């Protein structure tokens, strides 16, 4: 044996498992957060609709609260889908 490993320090980056890069409402990356939040993470997650479109949770809630009940991308009726 010429070489053995004592310690391994490694780096990985986490990403939301979303097919699009950006939220269609605020245009920010999912890996960043919505315009109202500061830190990316579980406080500002993406959510999926039945139409498979994803948005920041905060963005779609704002959208739905303004009386629009359709997906802003495809205009189909919005329904939340839980993953897993």
């Amino acid at each position, binding site marked *: 044996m010429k070489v053995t*490993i004592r310690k*391994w*320090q490694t*780096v*990985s*980056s*986490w990403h939301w498992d979303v097919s699009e890069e950006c939220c269609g409402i605020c245009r920010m990356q999912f*890996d960043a957060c919505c315009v109202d939040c500061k830190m*990316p993470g579980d406080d500002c997650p993406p959510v999926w609709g039945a139409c498979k479109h994803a948005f920041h949770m905060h963005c779609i809630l704002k959208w739905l609260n303004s009386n629009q009940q359709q997906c802003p991308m495809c205009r189909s009726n919005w329904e939340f889908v839980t*993953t897993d």
Partner: protein
Amino acid sequence: MFYCVQKMNIFSSNISNNGNNFQVNSSSGAAGGIGTIKKTPNSNNIQPQVKKLVIKNLKDTSKASENYQVESWSHLSNAIDSIYKKQPIKQTLEELYRMVDNLCSTEKYATTLTYVVSKHTKSIWDIGLHYFKTFLLSSTNLDKKLRIGILINIEKERNGETIDKDLLHHLIQMLLSLQIYESFEKELLSETSMFYYKESNHLINEYETPEYLKHVNNRIAEENTRSLRYIDPSTKRAIIQVVEKQMLEQHLDRLLQKGFNQMVEMDKIEDLELLYSLFTRVNGLSKLKSAWGQYIKTAGASMLADTEKDSSMIEDLIIFKDRMDHILNISFSKNDQLNYSFKESFEHFINTRQNKPAELIAKFIDSKLRSGSKGISDDELEMVLNKALALFRFIQGKDVFEAFYKTDLSKRLLMDKSMSIDVEKSVVLKLRNECGTVFTAKLEGMFNDIELSNEIMASFKECMAYTEHIKNIEMNVFVLASSNWPQYTPLNANLPTQFLEYQEMYRKFYSSKYPNRKLIWQNSLGQCVLKCFFQNGKKDTISSLLQTVVLLLFNNLNQDEEITLGKIQELSGIELEELKRHMMPLINSNTRILSRRSKNKSKILEIDDLFSFNKDFTHKLTRLKVNALQAKETVEENKKTNEAIIHDRQYQIDAAIVRIMKARKTLTHNLLMSELFQQLRFTPKPVDLKKRIESLIEREYLGRDQNNPMSYHYLA
């Protein structure tokens, strides 16, 4: 009677004001004739007589007849004339006194009487002056000679000769008393003006600026003393104004042009202080301001233009700013206008080289925050950081700084290169105070990620998977929120199966805590502590993950067995250029863990170069670092950071356009541009903005107005 005496007192005080040599003996004056003047010494010798004072009721004096009044008046008038002409008086003084007494009881005559008295009674002093003046002015040229004489003497003194100052003082006092000073003053001022006109035009060529200014200052002081010593103080202001005008005001440009830059260059604090104080006397501040601003701009721009000195640029700029601060504070008394011009000029020149100064400030701070940087005390470190940030304040492209700062910070954090996390955080706090929370949100996010990673790692180490499977190796994982960190490109490498297993265990653990997230491993940032066994002993080696992958290949080879670079590349799966970069330190003369055999002597590694494990390696240290390259910035990395800045700017422009148009629905091109200039935290080029607008029109976020192509609509 009372009235009359009162009037006379007024008269007497007039006399004593004009000349102290005379005094009215009012007691005898009242009795023995109005305005009799006696020499003072005698009057004091009169022995006081004992008198009986009888008080009677005040009688209402009978109103004298009109006729009596006229008559008395005429008598008195004649008598006064006679007294002044020193002729005998017809009436006795007693009679005259009665007349006055009676007349004074009627209001009308009291006033007239006073008038008559005062008409006649110019004081001896005044009369003397009157005759002296008449004589002086009538005799040919005498007063002219006198005035010229005075002026010549003043000029002599200005030329450094000694003169009789008392004499001049008396003569000028005489002119004042004779009330012919005013015309003399005019001549004096015009002579002064001529004198200093000539002198300044001569000296401005002969003297250097500091010498000249000192001379002017002396001249002003001299004229000040002169005015107080023998010229009338009322003329002081006017004379000094003449000096200022001729010696300074006429030459402001010349003085600055001749010597200002050299004075600043050589830190002539006192000379500059004098210059400032003299310039403020003559409204020269705006000229000084522009020379000052121009100097800073030119000197600064030339420091920046010298690309060979980039490595010391920030240090040089800090020294430069310290010097200019010192001049501003000491020589220019922190003058607001000059301070403004200082800041404006600094901001101007530091932005003459796009992006580079911002990058270098970030690197400078990096060099101070790295562990193993030169040992300086906390206070010194604090001071130097503040100074670097003071330069940062002038930078327009703050996002450039942020991008490079972020890249450097990430290395310090991920490669354990930071001197102290507390100091790191204090710098971020300073940046936040300077630029706001939006600016530092990502930097703060980085610290967050590190702390969170440590927490996750601690709980991972407690779970079964770790305690049962990961043995003999200490594993540590940083999980980053990618948007906080610089963009890393994942590097391919065939990791040892052991590593792959550990990664998978960690991934499972992580997913259990954070569903909906995926992990991307950043091999370029991994590092290992290895134990290498040589014939003369073992060494702890800190190496990059990629170096580790390469070194582990030799475990499968026999002693001294050689392997080509091509084969190493094939087995490790690392991209060739990246591989070469990581292998160089392993064959470096100081840390030659691998031996290289090559057909050519070139330093550049070739695909058929042969490598073997250098079992004979020796080194006096037991702990070696071969991964320094990971902490250094490569050319590609620098390029990448710059590209990231451009990309990020485009992104920010897009976001801003959409934000503005969403709020306004319709805007003309110019209005949109001006809003963008206000909102963006860098100074964009109009061409770039136009391109982004075009791109958003293509992507159907915006549409042009059908009638007015220079107006846009927001398309929901």
